[in-house]
């Protein structure tokens, strides 16, 4: 492969065989602004014979009718998370039907779908476009066993890729918690309800052929909410179950009890206070677990005490944020993915809890996504380096076990991007000299908050001044690295990667390549 070095000093391919040419990363905003709009991808045109029902008798029948052939691209959404039954169901059927070399391009891959590794081995899947890779699939792709092109994109980056035609979806199989016979779909009701269909909406807009798969066929017309309108949907398949409700809409995540994570969260909250960002009209995004969620608790108490009302919350919305909306702490919520039952209920009950599609959420190449208006985002990480670069894709063993998600997008868009992580985790320091894989560039990360203190990116002198004034518990990132290494008893030894074999390339949200994931020796 022809490699070049990007502006972060990382080697990336100029071309990925079986995918195409790529430009190297040149800065978070190198490709944004000063850009003349042009008409890229035209929308798929269909001329369906008018009918009163698009319901097909079987999944196999629907696939046959879709015109799917070997080598084509199929997509799914991941809103049903670990409760999803649709990806395994469809892939199993495609395998039975003898398909080969398909490009599997879901919006992301839930942890639970280890079966996908088998479909790569069997040759059903010949190319992978996703946001996340975990579990057995991660181990397989990091090993020497198979060799398929893999492109990892952020949520905003995927929206851009669909718009410009870098991903051309031939058939989208969309799990539909509530669907009528002409293909109007929503996710807020039904036995397998999942809340917002933010990723699914984009898939439906761009795919040449859309098959809705539902376990809840309702009387026409679906009402009161339609997230994906019928004119984008070609066929409807009814199945017994599209997923396990217990794993789709889990109970609200509880605030962590880990003392380290609580301290990390508290330090992040102090950083927010010091930056002067928690003011009326403030906008915020946080994670749904660990330290990232715990920040929400401190923030909530503070906003209640000081009677501060924010303008909007954004995400990946969990029960906590829905709670804050109902308490009047935010005027609105923009929800691209709902994480639990409480969120779905909030969406139904509260018109200020709005469903947004992923392009609206995070696409860098449109007239302005919501991440651009974020005052503050709290992001997790697997590890980070002394240049504030963040890795959310590979673990300490160098195996793929994470997702790009909205990380790059929110970090670039937010005024204050805070990454939360403990300085040492499972006996291994989290701050490295250089992370194995850069997902989010340090240029877009303002603060790294740990249990030992808050590290401020030297690029943000203004923040540093405010932090000193506020007596924030500051820490030097290299110091933290040293202290963590002293506890661990040394710097972790480098993983023996096979630099001749690429496991995956990591796109930045603007389509350039920010880093390469290598296979293990």
């Amino acid at each position, binding site marked *: 492969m022809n490699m070049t070095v990007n502006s972060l000093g990382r080697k990336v391919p100029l071309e990925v065989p079986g995918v195409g040419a790529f430009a190297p990363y040149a800065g978070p905003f190198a490709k944004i602004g000063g850009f003349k709009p042009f008409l890229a991808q035209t929308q798929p045109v269909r001329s369906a014979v008018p009918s009163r029902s698009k319901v097909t008798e079987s999944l196999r029948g629907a696939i046959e009718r879709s015109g799917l052939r070997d080598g084509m691209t199929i997509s799914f959404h991941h809103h049903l998370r670990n409760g999803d039954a649709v990806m395994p169901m469809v892939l199993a059927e495609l395998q039975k039907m003898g398909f080969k070399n398909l490009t599997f391009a879901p919006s992301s891959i839930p942890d639970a779908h280890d079966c996908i590794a088998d479909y790569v081995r069997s040759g059903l899947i010949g190319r992978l476009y996703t946001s996340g890779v975990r579990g057995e699939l991660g181990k397989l792709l990091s090993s020497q066993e198979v060799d398929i092109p893999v492109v990892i994109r952020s949520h905003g980056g995927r929206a851009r890729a669909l718009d410009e035609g870098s991903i051309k979806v031939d058939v989208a199989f969309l799990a539909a918690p509530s669907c009528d016979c002409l293909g109007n779909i929503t996710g807020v009701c039904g036995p397998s309800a999942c809340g917002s269909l933010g990723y699914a909406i984009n898939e439906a807009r761009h795919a040449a052929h859309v098959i809705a798969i539902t376990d809840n066929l309702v009387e026409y017309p679906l009402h009161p909410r339609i997230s994906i309108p019928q004119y984008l949907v070609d066929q409807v398949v009814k199945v017994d179950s599209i997923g396990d409700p217990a794993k789709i809409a889990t109970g609200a995540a509880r605030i962590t009890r880990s*003392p380290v994570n609580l*301290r990390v969260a508290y330090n992040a909250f102090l950083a927010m206070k010091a930056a002067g960002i928690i003011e009326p009209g403030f906008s915020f995004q946080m994670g749904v677990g660990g330290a990232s969620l715990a920040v929400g608790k401190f923030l909530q108490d503070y906003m209640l005490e000081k009677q501060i009302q924010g303008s909007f919350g954004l995400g990946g919305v969990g029960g906590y944020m829905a709670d804050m909306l109902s308490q009047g702490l935010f005027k609105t919520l923009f929800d691209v993915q709902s994480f639990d039952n409480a969120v779905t209920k909030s969406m139904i009950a509260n018109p200020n809890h709005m469903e947004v599609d992923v392009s609206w959420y995070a696409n860098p190449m449109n007239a302005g996504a919501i991440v651009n208006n974020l005052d503050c985002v709290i992001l997790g990480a697997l590890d980070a380096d002394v240049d504030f670069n963040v890795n959310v894709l590979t673990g300490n063993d160098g195996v793929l076990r994470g997702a790009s998600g909205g990380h790059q997008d929110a970090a670039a868009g937010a005024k204050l991007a805070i990454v939360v992580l403990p300085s040492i985790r499972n006996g291994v320091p989290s701050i490295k000299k250089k992370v194995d894989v850069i997902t989010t560039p340090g240029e877009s990360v303002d603060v790294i908050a740990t249990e030992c203190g808050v590290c401020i990116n030297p690029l943000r002198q203004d923040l540093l001044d405010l932090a000193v004034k506020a007596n924030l518990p500051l820490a030097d990132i290299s110091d933290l690295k040293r202290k963590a290494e002293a*506890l661990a008893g040394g710097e972790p030894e480098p993983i023996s990667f096979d630099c001749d074999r690429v496991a995956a390339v990591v796109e930045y949200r603007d389509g350039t390549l920010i880093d390469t994931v290598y296979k293990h020796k």
Partner: protein
Amino acid sequence: MRASRSMLYIPGDSPKMIQNSPYFGADSILLDLEDAIAMAEKDSARRVVSTFLRNFDFGDLTVIVRINGADTEFFEDDIKEIIPCRPYAVRIPKCSSPEDVLLADRKIAECERRNGIPVGTVKIHAMIETALGLERAFAIASACPRVGALTIGGQDFTADMGVQKTKEGTELFYARCRIVAAAHAAGVEAYDTVWADIDDPEGLYKESKEIVTLGFTGKACIHPSQIEMIHKAFQPSEKELRKAVKIVTAAEEAERNGKGVIAVDGKMVDAPIVARSQHLLELAKMYGMEVAQI
């Protein structure tokens, strides 16, 4: 002056908890080699504690080790291995007489000398867990300069007395009063016993407020979730603080003007009250409270 409101018990055989202890928010921790550790693991726990004491940076945290009693086979090894690591103090269980304290004092001093440590470096916190110990509380507290605190072990004390330990705590009232008085008379700290019900923070807060009123300087606890409530109970109220600021300001003014008599809100205020007010303001500052000046 160090904050000593909360003292979190951590089993000596839990390296992860010890490693995370600086982030619990407690003022001090009690690494337990005694009741929390099974007989077969005493050596293992002792080694974890001593290795951490020697190599781990506990930051501002005060570290105390509860060693096994002199009536056990583990006492000598505990002293031998723990004292050279210089914990702030060792907590000695079941002190029933000043002789119990003096024995420990002697053993510790020998160990300090052998290891080139100034004699008296490691303090003793004496646990009163028996009726006999209670009767001799002052003698125990003042047995030697090494004694830094008296503590009450509620579970063992009530067992010794043959009574039930209750949430209301009537059965411990006298013991608490006696211990706190003895401790103050001897010029040492007084730590209250643990609140066992982790799921009843209101009960914990009520008990903590009561013992603060009695004069205890700190309280032990068994779970990090209890620390916040204990600190809340020890926190001077805004009303108290405002009054303290008034008193201290008046005292300073009286001194500047060469006046011997201090009056606040029309009432005379004498020296002990001024001293208490100053102490309260120092405590507030130490606890990180913002005290607005009048």
